[in-house]
C-alpha cells in the first residue's frame, strides 16, 4: 500500500496497449470512468457495531482498485433519521456517526485519490429531512426567517394534477404540519419536505454545502431528484425552465472555482426530456439514461435487439463534453417508469412474477437473481453495459453475483452487507450477527458461503475474475468511453452488433441475445481488409473480405473485436 500522505495524483496512466490517455482533457475524466456504486453502511464495518463505515471502506480500496474501477459513487452518508436510507438529510455538512467522522471521510478520500479513484457523493438538493434544523425552524412559526425555505400552503389543492412518485406510500404531494397548521409540499416521502428554490437564501445555502465538500476534495456530485426543484401553477412541476436556470448557476460557480468537478443528474425521464439537463454543455456533465436499462433486460428476455436499438435511435446527441451514465442495477428498484404499459407488464411477468419483487413502478431485485444465476446472461448484460456509449456504473456486489432478499421491505433487499468471505458475517463485520444493520444473504445459492469475494479471488474463472478482465479491457481502449456507435442491423434480429469508433480505433461488438446458437452475417464492407482481433483472447479472425462476414455465436455469447488494418 502506498503512503497515504503522498499528495493525491489521479492522472490516468496509459495502458500498455491502450489508445493514448492524455491528461490534457483530464477535466473530462468522468467520460472515461467506470463507476462503482456503494453505500458505506453496506460495505465493511471496522468497529464491530454491525454497520459499515468509512474506515472499513478505506480498508477495501485495494479491492476496488484491483477490480479496475476508477470512480466511486457513495450513497448519502450524512446525519439522517434514515427513514429513506439517508436521502432524508438532517445535516449536510457532517457524517452520520454510524459511518465515522468527517476526518474518517477525509482519510478515505485521500486514500481513494491515492489509488486514482475519484469520489462522487450524493447531493440531495430537492428536499431535506423533516428533522433538519432548517425545517424545524421553518415549521416553528409562520414568521420564522426560515419559513420561506420550504413550500407551504393553506390548502392541499395547489399544484393539482402533479403526479405522485411514491404511489405505494403517499396519497398526496402535500402533508399537514400540525405545528404551523399548514400544508408543506413534498414530492417524495412526507417526511422529506421540498426546499423552496425560489428563495435565493436556499440556493445560496445549498451552494455553501457544495463548496464545503468540494473544498474537502470530492470529485463530483450526483444531484438527486433535480427535475423537481421548482413548482409552478398549471404545470407538472417538473423540468421547469427556472430549474435549469438554478442548475446553470451552480455549474458556472463550480467551473469557475472548482474546474474538473462533475455534476451528475438524476432525472428519470425520456432521453428527449433529459437532454435539456445537459443544456449547451453548461448544466450537467452527465445524466442517467434511465430508459435504456430496462430495455437491456427486455432485449435479453425477448431475444430481440429491437428494444435497445429503438431507444438508442431516439436518444438525441448530447454536447461534446457531456456523457450518459448507464447502469444495470442500483440501490433503487429497477425503475419501469420510462417504459410503456405493455413493456412494464412484460417486465413484471418475466422478471417479477412474485409480487414481493415489485415496488412502486419497478422491480427490487439484483442482477444475478434476475438472470436466474445464469452466468452467461450476467456476462452478456455486463458486456453490453461496458461496451455501449456512456459511463457504466457497477452496483456493489454485482461483480460477484450477489443475491437479494425481497422480504426485507422497501428496497433493503438489494442493500444487504457485502459478502467478503465465507466466515463470520461474511467478513463484513465482527459484530454479533443479530446486530448487523441488515441480515446477510444466507440461502444456499446466493448466500455468503457460496458467493463471496475471497472464494472468487481464488478462481481464475470466477465471475469476479471475469469482471476484472472485462473492465481491464474496457479501460485499455478509450474508444469504449468516447467513441461513436454505429449499429449494423444484420437480418438476424437476435444478434445486436455495433461498431464503436474513435479516430482510427475501431471496435466491433457482436452480442447473441438468445438462448440458442446463432449464425449471423455482418455487412462490414466499410472495414474491408481489416483484421478482427478478439479482444479477450487476442486471437486473429479471418480478414474481412467482399462477402458478408459470417460469425457463429453460442447461447448468450458475445465478441469484442478490434478492427485493425495491417
Amino acid at each position, binding site marked *: 500500500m502506498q503512503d497515504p500522505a503522498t499528495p493525491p495524483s489521479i492522472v490516468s496512466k496509459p495502458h500498455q496497449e491502450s489508445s493514448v490517455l492524455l491528461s490534457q482533457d483530464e477535466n473530462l475524466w468522468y467520460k472515461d470512468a467506470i463507476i462503482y456504486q456503494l453505500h458505506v453502511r453496506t460495505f465493511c464495518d471496522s468497529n464491530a457495531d454491525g454497520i459499515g463505515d468509512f474506515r472499513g471502506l478505506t480498508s477495501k480500496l485495494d479491492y476496488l482498485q484491483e477490480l479496475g474501477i476508477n470512480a466511486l459513487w457513495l450513497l448519502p452518508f450524512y446525519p439522517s433519521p434514515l427513514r429513506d436510507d439517508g436521502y432524508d438529510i438532517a445535516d449536510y455538512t457532517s457524517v452520520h456517526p454510524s459511518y465515522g467522522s468527517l476526518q474518517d471521510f477525509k482519510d478515505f478520500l485521500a486514500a481513494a485519490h491515492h489509488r486514482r479513484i475519484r469520489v462522487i457523493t450524493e447531493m440531495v438538493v430537492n428536499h431535506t429531512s423533516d428533522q433538519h434544523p432548517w425545517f424545524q425552524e421553518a415549521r416553528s412559526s409562520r414568521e420564522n426567517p426560515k419559513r420561506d425555505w420550504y413550500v407551504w400552503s393553506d390548502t392541499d389543492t395547489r399544484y393539482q394534477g402533479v403526479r405522485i412518485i411514491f404511489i405505494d406510500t403517499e396519497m398526496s404531494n402535500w402533508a399537514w404540519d400540525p405545528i404551523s397548521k399548514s400544508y408543506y409540499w413534498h414530492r417524495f416521502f412526507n417526511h422529506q419536505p421540498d426546499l423552496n428554490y425560489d428563495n435565493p437564501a436556499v440556493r445560496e445555502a445549498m451552494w455553501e454545502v457544495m463548496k464545503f465538500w468540494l473544498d474537502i476534495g470530492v470529485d463530483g456530485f450526483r444531484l438527486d431528484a433535480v427535475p423537481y426543484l421548482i413548482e409552478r401553477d398549471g404545470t407538472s412541476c417538473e423540468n421547469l425552465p427556472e430549474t435549469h436556470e438554478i442548475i446553470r448557476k451552480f455549474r458556472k460557480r463550480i467551473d469557475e472555482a472548482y474546474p474538473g468537478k462533475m455534476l451528475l443528474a438524476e432525472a428519470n425521464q425520456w432521453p428527449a426530456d433529459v437532454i435539456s439537463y445537459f443544456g449547451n454543455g453548461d448544466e450537467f456533465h452527465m445524466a442517467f439514461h434511465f430508459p435504456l436499462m430496462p430495455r437491456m433486460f427486455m432485449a435479453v428476455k425477448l431475444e430481440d435487439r429491437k428494444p435497445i436499438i429503438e431507444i438508442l435511435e431516439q436518444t438525441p446527441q448530447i454536447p461534446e463534453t457531456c456523457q450518459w451514465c448507464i447502469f444495470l442495477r442500483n440501490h433503487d428498484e429497477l425503475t419501469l417508469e420510462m417504459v410503456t404499459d405493455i413493456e412494464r407488464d412484460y417486465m413484471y411477468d418475466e422478471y417479477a412474477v412474485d409480487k414481493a419483487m415489485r415496488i412502486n413502478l419497478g422491480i427490487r431485485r439484483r442482477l444475478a437473481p434476475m438472470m436466474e444465476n445464469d452466468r452467461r446472461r450476467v456476462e452478456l448484460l455486463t458486456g453490453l453495459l461496458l461496451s455501449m456509449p456512456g459511463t457504466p456504473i457497477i452496483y456493489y456486489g454485482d461483480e460477484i453475483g450477489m443475491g437479494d432478499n425481497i422480504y426485507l421491505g422497501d428496497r433493503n433487499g438489494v442493500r444487504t452487507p457485502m459478502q467478503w468471505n465465507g466466515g463470520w458475517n461474511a467478513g463484513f463485520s465482527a459484530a454479533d450477527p443479530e446486530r448487523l444493520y441488515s441480515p446477510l444473504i444466507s440461502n444456499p445459492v446466493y448466500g455468503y458461503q457460496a458467493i463471496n469475494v475471497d472464494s472468487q479471488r481464488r478462481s481464475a474463472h470466477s465471475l469476479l475474475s471475469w469482471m476484472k478482465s472485462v473492465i481491464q479491457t474496457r479501460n485499455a481502449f478509450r474508444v469504449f468511453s468516447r467513441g461513436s456507435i454505429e449499429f449494423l442491423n444484420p437480418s438476424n*434480429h437476435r444478434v445486436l452488433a455495433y461498431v464503436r469508433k474513435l479516430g482510427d480505433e475501431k471496435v466491433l461488438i457482436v452480442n447473441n441475445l438468445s438462448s440458442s446458437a446463432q449464425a449471423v452475417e455482418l455487412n462490414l464492407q466499410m472495414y474491408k481488409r481489416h483484421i478482427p482481433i478478439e479482444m479477450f483472447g487476442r486471437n486473429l479472425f479471418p480478414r474481412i473480405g467482399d462477402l458478408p462476414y459470417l460469425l457463429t455465436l453460442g447461447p448468450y455469447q458475445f465478441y469484442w473485436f478490434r478492427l485493425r488494418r495491417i
Partner: protein
Amino acid sequence: MAEESFLADEFLRQLMSVGEVDLLVGIPSYNNAATLGQTLQSVEESLRQNFVRERAAILNVDGGSTDDTRQVFEQSADPRGASHKGLTSLRTIHRISCQYDKSPSQGWALRNIVAAADLLRARACAIISPATANVTSSWVANLVRPAYREGLDFVAPLYVRSRFQGLLARDLLYPMTRAVFGQRIRELYADEWGFSGRLASQCLEKDVWHEEAVRARPQAWMAITAIGGGLKCGQYFLGPKGAAPAGTGPDIVEAIRQTVGNFFWCMETNQAYWLSRSNSQPVSTFGPDHELSSDGIPPSPEKIFELFRSGVNGLEPILASILAPDTHAQIKAIALSDPTKFHFAMELWVKTLYEFAASYHHMVLNRDHLVQALVPLYRGKLYSFLLEHANSSGEEMEAQSEILCQEFERQKPYLVERWTAKS
C-alpha cells in the same frame, strides 16, 4: 431422382435470420402493388395491437409480379413515424419475401408459406389476400387467435354476404362439403384463412403439390386434410368482405373447374375418411355462423336459362355417360319446360351432383371435361334459385339453404352406393 428443393437459397437465408416465430402471416401476391401497402399496414397493426409479446413474421410470396409489388412489400414505411416515443410492439416484426419461379398459383404460394411455417416452427398462421379490398387489422387477429390460443388447426372465415353473393358456395360447395365430410364449414374457398403450425407441417409432407387441384385452390384441400387427420376446425366471423372489382375474378366455368374439381379430387383422396361417415357436426364458431344482408341485386336471369338449355342439349352424350338414365331424363325434361315456371328440384340437384362425383371417381371420361359438363346444370340451378328467391329475405334464403344441406345429408347413402359401385 429426388425433387430439387423448392426453397430458394435467399429465402432460406431469410428464414435462418428470423429463427423461430409464434405467428406467421402469409401474403400471396401477383401484381398487387396498388393494394399491398394497405394490406401490410393492417397486418402489422394487428400484430402490434394483439400480439405484442409474440414473435411474428410477415411473409410475402410473389408469383412473379411485373408491377412494383415486391418493392412495395420491402420498402413500405412503418406508419408510426420516426417521432413516435416508444416504443411499440416489444419485438421485431419481420418482413420476409420470396418469389417462386412458376406461374402464379395459390398452391405454390401456400407451399412456400407452410414450408416457412414448418422451418420457423410457427404455432399459428394466417393467409391474407392483398386482393381483398377491406382487410382490417381485426381479420388477422381473428384468423390467427383460434389457432394460437384455442387449439384449432384450421380457421375458415365467415363473411357478411349479400343475398346473391357466394351462390356457388351456398348451393353446392357448402352443403356438399358438410354432407360428405361431416363438418359445417361454410367458406372453404375463401382467400383468407388461418391454420396451425401442426397442420402446416402435415400439409408440407403431402406429395400433392403438383396436383392441379391443389395448385389452383389449396385452401379446401388444407381444411379437408385437417378434417381427415382428426384435427380441430372452426370458423371466425370477419364481417363484410369487399367484392373483387368486376372482371378480376374467374368466370363461372373457371370457378367451377377450380372449386368443384378441387372438391371432387379431395373426395377421391380422402375417401377412406368420408365413406363411412354420416350426418354432420357444427364446428367451433366465433361470432354469428352466417349473416345475409338484405341488399344485393340478383343477376339478370336472361340468357342463364338459354345457356342451361343449350348445354343440356349440346352435352347430351357426355351427360348420358355421367348421370343415371333417370336423372338425365329428368334434367332433359326440365330443360324443355316453360322458363317462367322453371324449377330445378332440390332432390334432383343433389342426385345430379352425387352422380357427377361418382362418375369423377370412376373416371367415366376426362375428369376436367366432366367437371366442366356441370357448368350448364349449375346454371339451371342458379336460374331456378333466382326465380324462387327474387323477393326472399336473407332469413328465408338461409332457411332454404339449411333444407338443401339436409337433403344432401339425407341422400349421402346414394352417393356412397354410386361411389362404391363397380364401374
